[in-house]
């Protein structure tokens, strides 16, 4: 006798909350399903991973040199050699990558990446002393890294407590000790410090943001290298996998200390001590995304803005000159599109991306623009990871069954998408593969 099989209940497909009516409802529903703002296609995956690799190599230089400037060059009045990090900083082991690290989360990271060292030696031209490479501008464009730091310094007040601390008496005292120690054999500079103390303090604040950005990118470089390795090994089934890797990375190092130490005559001056409790997530990553991906500032270049005609927002929070809004076409301008970074990435493109660019548009002739669009796609994916990480940290799981919770998630996603309602946003463009 056979046991009668109970009828299987049809799985309910009724959503717990009604569909979004937002202009970017399709993207919001994708985020609610665990996806990214960037559509999940094999080509998008290939593009973003390829550009992460090309970004990671110069970034490995940026973070080392930023820390070198903040910690060693410090207040050098004529910092002609600030883009020449010492061997010690090129050999600096990564704090979170490689077996030598204090907490191994990612691979590699024992010292500067071999592709970076090779480029530093040869550049686009040939092997020659690094001073000649520098003067010929055949080198990594550190000016891009400094522009990002300046965006963070200028916008300030983007969450976290970093900026509040820079305005505190404790910071002023720490900076004062370091300034006096640095110029102890230079009476002229000490005299100037007496006359213009705020100017010196402002310069130290800039160096504190330089350290902040260096510590931020120290983490991002091995993340991007490892994503490239995983892709080359056949990992990552799609764009959401790549985004989830970033989300997990954000959580893993969220508590990394953000600090500013300056080394003067071998003595460590703790201008921002680790004991202040500043973290990678709150004091570096979130302000970075806000200042660099969204805001930055209008730039001098092929396109000009007229502030009197209202072409520049009165409120800094409304600035929208970051990569998420950039018109990538006018290559050569000084700010966004980040031409200097695009040129840096051009040197380290994986072969599959070079192949892709050859097949489209004008082939090699406009690959700087094509890789700029790829970079834009990849940064929409990084921003998606930040949005999903914030949702996970502050709100509810995507598979939550409480409609109130799902509505809270919905309101959060819609508020994030409101920032892409302005016409300059490229969110619509990246939905299509034809945007190149």
């Amino acid at each position, binding site marked *: 006798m056979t046991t009668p099989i109970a009828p299987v209940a049809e799985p309910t497909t009724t959503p717990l909350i009604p569909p979004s009516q937002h202009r970017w409802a399709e993207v919001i529903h994708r985020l609610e399903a665990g996806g990214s703002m960037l559509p999940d296609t094999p080509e998008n995956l290939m593009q973003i991973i390829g550009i992460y690799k090309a970004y990671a190599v110069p970034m490995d230089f940026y973070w080392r040199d930023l820390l070198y400037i903040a910690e060693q060059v410090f207040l050098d009045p004529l910092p002609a050699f600030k883009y020449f990090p010492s061997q010690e900083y090129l050999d600096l082991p990564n704090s979170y990558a490689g077996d030598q690290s204090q907490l191994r989360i990612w691979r590699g990271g024992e010292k500067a990446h071999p592709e970076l060292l090779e480029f530093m030696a040869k550049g686009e031209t040939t092997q020659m002393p690094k001073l000649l490479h520098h003067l010929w501008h055949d080198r990594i464009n550190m000016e891009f890294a400094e522009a990002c730091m300046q965006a963070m310094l200028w916008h300030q007040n983007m969450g976290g407590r970093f900026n509040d601390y820079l305005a505190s008496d404790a910071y002023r005292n720490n900076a004062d000790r370091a300034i006096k120690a640095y110029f102890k054999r230079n009476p002229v500079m000490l005299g100037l410090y007496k006359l213009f103390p705020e100017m010196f303090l402002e310069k130290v604040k800039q160096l504190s943001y330089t350290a902040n950005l260096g510590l931020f990118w120290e983490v991002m470089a091995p993340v991007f290298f490892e994503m490239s390795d995983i892709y080359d090994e056949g990992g990552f089934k799609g764009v959401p996998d790549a985004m989830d890797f970033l989300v997990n990375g954000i*959580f893993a190092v*969220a*508590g990394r200390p953000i600090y500013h130490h300056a080394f003067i005559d071998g003595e460590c001056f703790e201008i921002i001590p*680790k004991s202040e*409790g500043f973290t990678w997530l*709150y004091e570096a990553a979130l302000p970075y995304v806000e200042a660099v991906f969204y805001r930055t500032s209008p730039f001098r270049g092929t396109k000009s803005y007229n502030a009197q005609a209202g072409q520049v927002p009165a409120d800094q929070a409304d600035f929208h000159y970051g990569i998420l809004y950039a018109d990538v076409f006018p290559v050569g301008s000084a700010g966004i599109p980040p031409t200097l970074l695009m040129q840096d990435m051009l040197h380290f493109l994986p072969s599959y991306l070079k192949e892709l660019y050859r097949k489209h548009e004008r082939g090699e002739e406009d690959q700087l623009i094509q890789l700029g669009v790829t970079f834009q796609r990849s940064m929409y994916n990084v921003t998606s990871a930040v949005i999903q990480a914030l949702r996970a*940290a502050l709100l509810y799981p995507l598979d939550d069954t409480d409609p109130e919770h799902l509505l809270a998630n919905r309101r959060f996603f819609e508020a994030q998408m409101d920032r892409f309602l302005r016409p300059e946003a490229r969110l619509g463009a990246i939905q299509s593969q034809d945007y190149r």
Partner: protein
Amino acid sequence: MATILETAQAAGCFSTLLTAVEVAGLRSALEGPGPFTVFAPVDDAFAALPPGTVQTLVDNPPQLARILKYHVLSGACLRADLTTQPEWTSLEGAPVAIRRSEPFEVKNSTVVQADIVCDNGIVHVINRVILPG
């Protein structure tokens, strides 16, 4: 009656929290007279965080202390007190939102057991680690 930490010790489901309090150097503060209101995440709440999250914090006590202080209010507040206003300032400095009174929700966590009265304050057991922001 027992102190907040003794109560947590006896419950047996707060071993991660207790270790974190020790590492962050907050033990003596939480053994003081207070009173405090502590939102205590259970071990499963810490385990649900992505790999590495807790370890990075444990390696950096000042940063860990900051996150833990977000789980503590000054003063002894029962559930009935907490639900009288939408948010409370934590010892970390950032506000902790009381999102719902039924079920009782603090920030994005649900209170699985409220109003555990101790010598030096009140403990509310929560199912998720809460983060400022």
